[in-house]
């Protein structure tokens, strides 16, 4: 489904991705782990099309299409979803309005009838229940004044509503307490299906206690340096990133439970 070949990308002239290869099949869940600064977030931003990141070489093919040639919103409409590490606040725009606009943009693209207000509310309320969000969050401005955990729940809510074909979770687990972590994991697990692929980017193994990946990759200095099964994550947990040998960076302890950033 997704084929990344020799991808090279830089930000502000600084090379970050230096020949990254990754192949993801439909139905699979891949975990990408790596120390800070290894290029994890750059990978997610490049796949989503952020302009501040320039692609210097390589190719990304998604369902036979040249992903890198697609505009940001076309990627989104075609089913690429990025759960943000730091969800953005949009003052004055209600969450309900934002979600409805997004869902209908995607539905329209897929040739489905757009939701009217009633259909949408029924749908969104059911999904909110599943992620443990109170209804009041519909009527608050997008992410404004949300706690770290609430923002991440809101990301998972959007992911569920938009029914992506390829979802990328960029350190969605960082700074979450165990309850919120379970919500994120549950959201991912509910989305698993034979025609979807998920890429879970994480610094810590603990999310993988709840989301069992088909493959685990270790990213270091802009390349995938090791790939394996779930056991690779456990090995990393045990030995730290220093063990992968070439980065010199060490594994930091996870933040205390409940901490937010």
């Amino acid at each position, binding site marked *: 489904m997704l084929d990344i070949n020799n991808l090279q990308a830089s930000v502000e002239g600084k090379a970050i991705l230096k020949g990254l290869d990754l192949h993801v099949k439909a139905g699979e869940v891949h975990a990408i782990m790596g120390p800070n600064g290894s290029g994890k977030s750059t990978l997610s931003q490049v796949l989503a099309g*952020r*302009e501040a990141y320039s692609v210097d070489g390589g190719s990304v093919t998604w369902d036979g299409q040249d992903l*890198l040639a697609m505009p*940001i919103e076309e990627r989104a409409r075609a089913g690429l979803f990025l759960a943000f590490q730091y969800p953005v606040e949009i003052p*004055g725009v209600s969450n309900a*309005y934002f979600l409805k606009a997004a869902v209908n943009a995607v539905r329209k693209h897929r040739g489905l009838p757009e939701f009217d207000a009633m259909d949408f509310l029924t749908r969104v309320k059911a999904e909110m229940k599943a992620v443990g969000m109170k209804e009041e969050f519909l009527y608050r*401005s997008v992410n404004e004044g949300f706690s770290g955990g609430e923002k991440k729940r809101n990301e998972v809510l959007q992911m569920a509503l938009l029914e992506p074909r390829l979802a990328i979770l960029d350190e969605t687990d960082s700074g979450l307490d165990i309850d919120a972590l379970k919500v994120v994991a549950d959201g991912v697990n509910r989305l698993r299906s034979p025609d979807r692929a998920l890429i879970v980017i994480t610094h810590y193994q603990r999310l993988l206690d709840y989301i069992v990946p088909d493959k685990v990759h270790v990213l270091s200095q802009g390349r995938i340096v090791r790939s394996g099964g779930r056991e690779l994550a456990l090995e990393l947990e045990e030995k730290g990133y220093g063990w992968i040998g070439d980065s010199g960076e060490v594994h930091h302890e996870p933040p205390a439970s409940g901490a937010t950033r």
Partner: protein
Amino acid sequence: MKTATPARQIDSFLEQEYSAGFETLLEADTLPKGLSEDVIRVISAKKGEPDFLLQWRLEAYRHWLTMTPPHWAAVSFPEIDFQDIVYYSAPKKKDGPKSLDDVDPELLKTFEKLGVPLHERARLAGVAVDAVFDSVSVATTFQKELGEHGIIFCSFSEAVKHHPELVRQYLGTVVPPSDNFYAALNSAVFSDGSFVFIPKGVKCPMELSTYFRINARDTGQFERTLIIAEEGASVSYLEGCTAPMRDENQLHAAVVELIALDDAKIKYSTVQNWYPGDKDGVGGIYNFVTKRGDCRGARSHISWTQVETGSAITWKYPSVILRGDDSVGDFHSVALSNHRQQADTGTKMIHMGRNTRSTILSKGISAGHGSNTFRGLVRIAPRAEGARNYTQCDSLLIGDQCAAHTFPTIEVRNPSAQVEHEATTSRIGEDQLFYAMQRGLTAEDAVSMIVNGFCREVFKELPMEFAVEAQKLLGVSLEGSIG
């Protein structure tokens, strides 16, 4: 990467064309350029005015000659040559339209194109319209229906003819001719406008609306609006404006006076879409307007709501004099300046009565090379025991070439007064656009959504039909019925 970047898409969004920029070709009765006592006499004679009004105009003109244009606003433009302006231009016709059948079909078409149908069949539901084209009113709808309630809604010229006593009693009592340079000029040469009188105890059963259209070349539009709400009366009044696209600047110097007696309420809403000039700042309307309301009676309430998207330069401070005890003044404003537009706008709340209250809510949006200034004055007079004001000024910047300024002045001469001021400045961030686009929205929709969210508190104050128009004007789609 070949993706369309948010920044580039914002640019194209901001460069949307002005859609009301067409010109109507009509035979017009136009005076030569220039201003003198003779010109004023001709205007007055053409309108068959009583002598008191001619004398009033001449006095204003003589005072104007002693004045100089104000330079304190944060706007810059070449000196205006006041002898290079046409002060009177009217579509040629017989003795003034008796009914819509007498109105030139070209004119009706013009207003239809602008979305202001004047035909019986197509009239805006529940809105009475006075359509002003260049210097004269071409039609006022629903007059008969309103007359049954004792309401007078007509062009200013008709009011002078049929209700001279009311005009004489109230004209210039809120904005005296000597008030400022442009008000003096307007008093000397005003040619038409709207007149509204709501008698004691009457709640006006429909929205009243005036649509101003500048068409003729080199013509200034100097209209005069006078709205009087007697004891316990209430009215909601809307004003819309457009002009053709032209390379030269045109002057629009209007005066609006509102008078609210005891327990009366006047709600005045404006959607101003004068031609703003092109993206390099060539052409456009200079909108130098004096708008003031007088809460003359106890418990009276005057509310200004404005959405200012047009004009090359806007210089406008709709104000309220809170004379009556317990009277209330509101000012809700959205001002957008894009390309080379300059807006210096705000309000004055003059608290004179006891327990008077005022609210100022200003939303300034600057884009392109636009400059947006909020200028406000809150004055609490010594006898205004218990007066309260709340001011909120928010600025939104789109791009990095624009400017936003806030100049609030607060003068408190009574220790019991409570005055609050809040101000914020924010920018539509690349991160916000990226976030919205990653969810499937186009950059255009994302900007619209953010701008619309920013303006929501003000749009809420507009009557429904205008709220829709205002949102369209800002290039925004209507926020759904939820949220």
